């Protein structure tokens, strides 16, 4: 079957140490912005403990759920493993206010989708056009459950220092890719990302 394939190489590998209280997704966005990453891979994120997780997943019953996707928080501590794709949000012909999420006006979800920034972040973009995008899946586990989901803002690194004397920290390994870009873009019914060869 014909499919889009682009070849590239790793330009550099970044190791990023997060400290207690850091928002994991915010750290990925910050790193993408600081190093001008238009295409990247979070190869690995591990080595510490998360205080909580905020994740996006499918609702149990779409008929009784206003949104096609759930977002929820679970208190940790959790061990977690993160991977995903970094791109950049690009302009499209569609405005975010036009994005229908079923029949629910998404601004009616208090605390979840109240502002325009909330809407972008529900989609993986930091804040709209020209801001970083992270499409990240992660797995997390405590003594009772193992789960997975789509990483959302609010997921924080735990501070175990005071409790058990373990230095806090969480390490991300990020590969910056050259010659291509991953463009996250609004479509008529939602968000998608596209692979684009970088113009020389």
């Amino acid at each position: 079957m014909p499919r889009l394939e682009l070849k590239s190489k790793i330009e550099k590998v970044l190791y990023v140490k997060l400290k207690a209280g850091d928002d994991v997704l915010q750290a990925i966005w910050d790193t993408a912005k600081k190093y001008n990453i238009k295409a990247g891979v979070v190869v690995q994120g591990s080595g510490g403990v998360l205080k909580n997780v905020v994740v996006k997943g499918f609702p149990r019953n779409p008929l009784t759920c206003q949104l096609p996707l759930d977002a929820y928080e679970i208190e940790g501590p959790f061990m977690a493993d993160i991977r995903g794709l970094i791109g950049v949000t690009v302009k499209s012909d569609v405005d975010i206010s036009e994005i229908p999420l079923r029949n629910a006006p998404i601004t009616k979800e208090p605390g979840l989708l109240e502002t325009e920034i909330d809407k972008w972040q529900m989609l993986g973009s930091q804040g709209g056009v020209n801001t970083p995008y992270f499409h990240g899946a992660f797995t997390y586990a405590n003594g009772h459950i193992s789960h997975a989901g789509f990483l959302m803002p609010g997921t924080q690194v735990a501070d175990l220092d005071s409790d058990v004397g373990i230095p806090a920290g969480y390490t991300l390994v990020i590969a910056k890719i050259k010659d291509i870009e991953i463009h996250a873009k609004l479509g008529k019914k939602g968000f998608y990302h596209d692979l684009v060869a970088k113009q020389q």
Partner: protein
Amino acid sequence: MNRAQAIGAIDELIFARVQPGEDLIEALWEIAAKNDIKAGWVMEGSGILKRVTFQRFPHNAKTCGLFIDVYNLEGPMLCNITGIIGTMRDSGGDTSVYPLAYVKGVMETEMDRFEMGTSQGFNTPYIHNHFDVMTKDGCVMGHLMRGSIVAEANSPGDPSEFTVVIAKAKGIDFGTELRPNGFGHFIHQI
């Protein structure tokens, strides 16, 4: 302790978009064959699956005809994959000695037996991929098999979001072979 080790380097990265309706493992086989990947790995692959087919250990091996279960889970589900890529080598092993062939619908043909090892036959790509999926009911992990289908895009005309990043290695030849005495399973060779 002695152990096999080989040192190589990344030759190139291949970013590929897997289309809605495509079988994920078939797409990976194609990409590996087209790019002549003798050793590599799926560095990242994520998107939404309509259905996943996978191997797991049975709950109770004594009541299960096989030492491994194969079954499906219907989506939609968020999916993340990683894995290793090599070649199914012809080492003289014979799949017919496998005691798996009697399982109706799972292990009936020689191709079924190779696909249990996630290849399509001798001298074809071998993909050992693990996944985690998050369905509405929870998280499942397992060994990805043929029959795992990429979900439709948000709207017709939008590109698929299922993107895989494959690292092609150089300086290493990685493969798997049938265990010479024929019993059980495949073994990796570096």
